[in-house]
Each structure stands twice: as C-alpha cells, then as structure tokens.
C-alpha cells in the first residue's frame, strides 16, 4: 500500500497524519498512545503487528521538547507507519507498551537510559547500555559535549585534555 493510501486509512480514526518522503507519520497525544497502537495493530487493513523500534529526539527549543517515535511494520501487508508522541520537558512520562509489544522492553529501557523518559508500567525500567549508577542522560541536548571523567571504583580521573600535570 502506498503511504498516501495508508495515511487515508489512518485518518479515518486519527486525523493528524503527515506523509513525507513516502512515509506516513501519525502524531497523537500521549494519553492516546496505547489506544492508537492497539487500533493500528488490530485494524485488519493496517495490521501493524510488529514494532521495529522505539526512539526519541530532543528539541530544547520546541514545545513539547521530547518526541518519541514508534516505528511499526505489518508482517501481512509489508507496509510501515510511524507514530510520534510529544512529551513536555517538565514531565517526560508516557505509558509503557511492553504488554502490547514485548520487543518494546529493551527499546524503552534504551530511551530511558539516554533521554531520561520514564515509561510508566514498564516491568524492569533500569539502564541498559550505560553503567548502573550513571549520572545524567547523555543524549539530551543540554548535556555537555566532550569526554567525561573515568568512573572506576571511586576514582574520578578527567579526560586527557582536562588533566593538569
């Protein structure tokens, strides 16, 4: 199915669909996230039964600041739809979809790890790639660039370019 046809189908229920570069993107409010995913998965003509990934972007100058993207794929129809949800800066919470798509488990942990977005109802929301006890969320645009201190057993050694002799 072409992206325009897909967008037409989705618009019947959720009007905010954008088609760009041959890809259909649906934008919903975070309160609608679980219902929208369930609709996209269970509607026979859409049948988006596979979650390819969950990822996030950080736009410090926009409102809302954080945007989650759920990339969905249909095994039966081999088409794709992206679903986006905006989250405000002061309350980056959203419902977890692990119960609906088990593959979201590690994806949501990764987004939590790097952006600090909390997925309510996630069965095991802890860091997945960074060491336990890491301070901060490194992919937020407000984080400092450059190397960080080596954190090893209480040692705290700065990067080479910030060391004094």
């Amino acid at each position, binding site marked *: 199915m072409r992206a325009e046809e897909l967008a037409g189908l989705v618009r019947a229920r959720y009007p905010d669909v954008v088609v760009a570069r041959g890809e259909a993107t649906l934008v919903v409010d975070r309160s609608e996230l679980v219902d929208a995913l369930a609709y996209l998965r269970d509607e026979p003509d859409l049948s988006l039964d596979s979650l390819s990934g969950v990822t996030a972007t950080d736009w410090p100058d926009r409102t809302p600041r954080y945007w989650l993207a759920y990339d969905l794929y249909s095994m039966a129809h081999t088409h794709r739809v992206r679903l986006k949800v905006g989250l405000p800066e002061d309350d980056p919470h959203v419902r977890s979809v692990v119960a609906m798509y088990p593959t979201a488990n590690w994806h949501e942990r990764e987004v939590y790890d790097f952006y600090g977005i909390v997925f309510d109802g996630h069965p095991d929301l802890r860091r997945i790639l*960074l060491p336990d006890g890491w301070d901060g969320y490194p992919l937020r645009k407000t984080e400092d*660039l450059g*190397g960080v201190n080596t954190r090893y057993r209480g040692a705290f050694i700065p990067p080479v370019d910030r060391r004094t002799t």
Partner: protein
Amino acid sequence: MPVERLEGLHTGRGQAGREDDEDEVRRGILLTTMDKAVRWARKQSMWPVTFGLACCAIEMMAAGAGDYDLSRWGMELFRASPRQADLMIVAGRVSQKMGPVLRTVYDQMPEPKWVISMGVCASAGGMFTNYAVVQGVDTIVPVDIYVPGCPPKPEMLMYGILRLHEKVRTEGHFK
C-alpha cells in the same frame, strides 16, 4: 656461538672481559647475573592475553598471523585466560562499561605483567571524546607502551612490542 649473538648475557665487565667470555662460551659456560637471565627469559616468551576491543584488534590479529608472525618473538600464543598471560594489548576503545572488566582481567594476570595501549582510542580516547568511551586506558591500568595510530599498522604494533622487550630486558629487578 659468537658472543655477539648472546644478547644481554655477557658479564658486563666491558671490552676487556669479552675475550674471557668468548673462551668460556667455547668451554660451554655462560656467566651472567640472575637479573639479566630472568629478564632475558621473560622477554623471549611473552604471552599476550586476548583483549581485542575494536578495529585495532584486527591489526593485532594480523600481526599475530602469517604475514607478520609475532612468533618470531615467541609471542604468537594469545591466551584466552589472563592467568596464563603476562602482556595485555588493549586494542581498541574502552567503553565506560568495559573499564571494570578490563581492570578485572588485568588483576587476574600473574606478576610480572605489562600493558601496551594500542591505538589512539585506548591511549587518549581518540575521536571518541564523548560520554561513552574512557579517555585514556591509563586511568584504569598502568600502561608501559603507547602505540599511536588509528589503527596502528602491524609494523607499528611490532615496534611497540620491541620497545617493550627492550624495557623488559633492561629494567627492573628479579624478585
């Protein structure tokens, strides 16, 4: 065997002593100090621990394989167990999460032990000046030789190894 071949094993009595040494070699006797003999033996057969982390490891493997052949210096045997190794070649960038693993492997190696930091990432973070990568492996383990390059060619690693051999042969005391 001419005395010149017996690198590091002459008595160190200077030029005047060398003819005596040569006589003794002909009689099947070598004279040296315990320090020199032990250091010479250590240098001749270093066993590196397998610690490839990134693209530098490919060059390290190339150095160990047929074309470059580290076995010429008695060190083709990369050990999978740190307990059987005395040289750690940190080949590649060390992520912050890998740091404690690296140190644990290092701690499990028996004394005496040496570390070569291979490539610019292991030495100083390299192009990865970011949150994910340790900015210099010398913040975690003591490093003997830094080999620059991105990645260093096998010849560069071999040069670093030979410099380490020189260090092992000439420095330190046998305990």
